[in-house]
């Protein structure tokens, strides 16, 4: 049922969740959700353990729907979403281990930051709500402005306040829906730092985004959603390697690009070379072939290699391929 | 995009890429943003477009089926007595008792307002917020006023739309009664000339009711972007004064206060104008009759309209 470039079952290509004593295993088992005639999530299965996982997809692909189902705010039309083995639908107890940072901006504007986080701490039944709130606010670096009404906060501050509210009960799972929305670059770096720290404590973090740089920088694993289907799962470099029917591109700087190019093109494994801007671009269908061929050819031609770099192994190219081809084979 | 694409090639002649005859071999077209260079229709057109659009909103035309439910439902209920009455009289005529049926029918030009008064209130309360609430909620007023439309024009257009809508709701049933009577009588031209005398009264009452209800409901609706709250406010304005008047009237000392309350009660005022216009016996609940009641109706409308205009003039956008 995979919709990726290989026929591998996405759920097996995702690394199994490490069994930590703290738990934090998220499992989606053949989850679908439709609204009338529109299928928003189509038979998605995956399992996630501790660490940071990015849920990547274009707008309308179903990321928010998946997060809402995981958060127990939407009922799956089919399948089951569980956190540590407990289905999330209709189970208020699951919120003791779950922290949710929703996408929608709405926050009670009449409260100030401290009151808001303390309120959430109380709702969670935390033992010392005020202290927990202060800790959470400190973790997101909002302690200074905690006394101001939320209505006066900037967008970045509001995101951080939401995060503080989600952290106040020390949840083992964190779900964030588009956490980088509307943050400026400095705030983004800050958020990335924060999330890395949380993951370092052994939490399971799942965040959704359509901003590739953030996902590339932050996520250890990615799940690519397109049109409600899981298009790929795992480390994105691995996914790239699995896309065998698409040629890889390398950028090479050498002492004699033209000579190298003419030698390389003679080999059937290489099907295109291009000289631009003082660099040599080489395209090959066989990843391994070039790694063997290049040093041999360079040595034989007495060309020194200064730089060899895979050019299209960015998340963007992976994503573009997965999404551009309709998320499936051509 | 309007306008023809502009070829970006050079002029014919010695330019590269052109054939010997000077026609370009290839062109790159500039498909970017273009200004509208056509005729602009100006303020009057803007106002009439707004009136038309608001009138359609009054009946939910151009929106989902659910939006049509309340206005058409209420208008249909307003039509119902007329249709039923005509049907009954027609049936009675078949049975030969036409004249008696006609005589005892409670559905007449004069009584029609009384029958559908509540429906008119509900119509105004439901639809006036529809006209104003959306623009307030989504803050499009700054967009609207940045064009040829003036603020006062906006207000006038909305008022005209609601007035026309209420006129339709009232006059269509009256028309049905008229046609029924004319067509079912043996001497059509005599029936017509007999009824034509009632025309000024019918139209006058409908007009007074339309203007009064439209201005009050729009004035209240302009205060809230939340349509349901506006509806509640309008209903309170229609329903509360008669209740208050009812309570006050009960006691001897408060009878005058009761009269005052009835004076600001749209339903009582319109009852009075109806009686005056149709020359009905006076059961003077508001203590004024005749033309004074119409004057009061006009005065209340004027005040409400003034409130509306001032509110929109002052509204920060």
């Amino acid at each position, binding site marked *: 049922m995979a919709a990726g470039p290989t026929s591998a079952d996405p759920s097996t290509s995702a690394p199994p969740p490490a069994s930590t004593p703290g738990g934090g295993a998220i499992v989606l088992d053949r989850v679908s959700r439709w609204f009338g005639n529109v299928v928003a999530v189509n038979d998605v299965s995956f399992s996630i353990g501790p660490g940071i996982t990015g849920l990547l997809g274009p707008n309308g692909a179903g990321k928010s729907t998946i997060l809402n189902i995981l958060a127990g705010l939407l009922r799956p039309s089919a399948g089951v979403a569980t956190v540590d083995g407990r289905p999330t639908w209709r189970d208020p107890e699951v919120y003791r281990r779950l922290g949710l940072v929703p996408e929608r901006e709405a926050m009670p504007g009449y409260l100030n930051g401290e009151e808001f986080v303390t309120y959430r701490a109380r*709702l*969670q039944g935390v033992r010392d709500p005020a202290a927990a709130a202060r800790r959470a606010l400190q973790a997101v670096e909002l302690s200074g402005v905690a006394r101001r009404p939320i209505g006066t906060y900037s967008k970045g501050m509001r995101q951080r306040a939401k995060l503080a509210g989600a952290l106040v009960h020390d949840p083992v799972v964190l779900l964030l829906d588009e956490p980088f929305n509307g943050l400026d670059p400095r705030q983004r770096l800050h958020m990335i730092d924060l999330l890395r720290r949380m993951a370092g404590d052994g939490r399971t973090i799942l965040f959704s985004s359509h901003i590739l740089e953030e996902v590339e920088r932050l996520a250890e694993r990615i799940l690519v959603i397109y049109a409600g289907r899981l298009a790929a799962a795992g480390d994105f470099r691995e996914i790239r390697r699995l896309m065998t029917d698409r040629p890889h591109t390398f950028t090479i700087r050498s002492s004699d690009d033209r000579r190298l190019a003419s030698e390389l093109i003679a080999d059937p494994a290489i099907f295109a070379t291009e000289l631009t801007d003082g660099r040599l671009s080489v395209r090959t269908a066989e990843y391994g072939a070039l790694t063997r061929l290049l040093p041999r050819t360079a040595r034989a031609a007495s060309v020194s290699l200064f730089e060899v770099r895979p050019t299209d192994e960015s998340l963007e190219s992976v994503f573009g391929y997965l999404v551009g081809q309709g998320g499936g084979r051509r | 995009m309007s306008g023809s694409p502009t070829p970006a090639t050079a002029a014919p002649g010695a330019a590269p890429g052109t054939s010997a005859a000077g026609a370009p071999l290839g062109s790159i077209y500039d498909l970017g943003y273009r200004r509208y260079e056509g005729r602009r229709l100006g303020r009057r057109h803007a106002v009439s477009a707004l009136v038309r659009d608001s009138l359609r909103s009054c009946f939910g035309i151009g929106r989902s089926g659910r939006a049509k439910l309340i206005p058409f439902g209420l208008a249909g209920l307003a039509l119902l007595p007329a249709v039923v009455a005509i049907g009954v009289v027609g049936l009675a005529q078949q049975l030969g008792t036409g004249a008696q049926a006609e005589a005892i029918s409670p559905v007449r030009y004069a009584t029609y307002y009384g029958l559908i008064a509540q429906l008119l209130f509900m119509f105004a309360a439901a639809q006036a917020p529809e006209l104003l609430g959306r623009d307030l909620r989504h803050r499009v007023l700054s967009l609207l006023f940045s064009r040829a439309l003036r603020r006062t024009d906006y207000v006038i257009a909305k008022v005209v739309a609601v007035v026309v809508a209420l006129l339709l709701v009232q006059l269509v049933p009256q028309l049905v009664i008229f046609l029924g009577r004319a067509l079912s009588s043996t001497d059509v031209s005599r029936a017509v000339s007999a009824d034509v005398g009632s025309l000024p009264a019918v139209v006058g009452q409908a007009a007074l009711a339309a203007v009064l209800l439209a201005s009050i409901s729009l004035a209240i609706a302009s205060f809230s972007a939340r349509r349901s709250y506006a509806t509640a406010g309008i209903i309170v304005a229609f329903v509360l004064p008669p209740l208050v008047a009812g*309570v006050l009237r009960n006691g001897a000392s408060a009878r005058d206060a009761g009269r005052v309350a009835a004076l600001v009660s749209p339903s009582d005022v319109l009852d009075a104008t109806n009686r005056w216009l149709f020359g009905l016996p006076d059961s003077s609940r508001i203590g004024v009759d005749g033309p004074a009641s119409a004057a009061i109706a006009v005065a209340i409308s004027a005040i409400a309209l003034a409130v509306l205009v001032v509110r929109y003039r002052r509204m920060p956008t």
Partner: protein
Amino acid sequence: MILTIAVATARAVLGRRRTILLVLLAAVPALVALLARGSGVSATETTALTIDLLVVRAVLPIVALVLGTAALGSELEDGTAVYVLASPVARWQIVVAKLLVAIVGTFILAGVSTLVTGLVLATDGPSLGLVWASVLGVLVGSVVYCALFVALSLVTTRAFIVGLIYVLVWEGALASLFGGTRFLSVRQYVVGVANGIGQPPGAPFGDTLPIESALMLAAVVLVLAAALAVERLRAWEVRPAD
């Protein structure tokens, strides 16, 4: 926990503008009472009439409607309900907290309105007894109306309009046409209780349900509405933003 949520709800619902308008509305019967004083007719009749027309038919249902639909509905509408729902608080506790705010708010406004109006008009023993009876009736009405409207706000997004139609059409127009609707009309419970307590001479509120039936029906409606609200809250789904 219930108290925490109730306090937060009260802060959200009783914003300045809304509260002021409701207080003004609740003041109207009292003002009218000042004008209607000392009329020739019996104090009991005037009191009953004023309270019935102005408070029971107008102030009570409208205040209950505004507070009842706002208690839960405004949070559900603007998306801040997520913060309460994504917590381990039992759903029945949430409903109770919201009901508490709505009922207390409604009873304070409508009850005080009844009390002041009644005290202004009541000049003799029987009519004073009527005032207290009315206040108790209004209490029953506050509880049942609010329960009804809170449940309604979970059933439909247009709870306010539907509630308004219920009050105006069902309890207003239809009730005068069909006697059977008495059993399903909160207003009837209110006047039934008011009529029944203290047995004032005659039936100042007209021909109403006997007090036992009124209380029983009110209790049934309350329980059903609260149960419905809890169940709907358990199965509440976030609305897709797309």
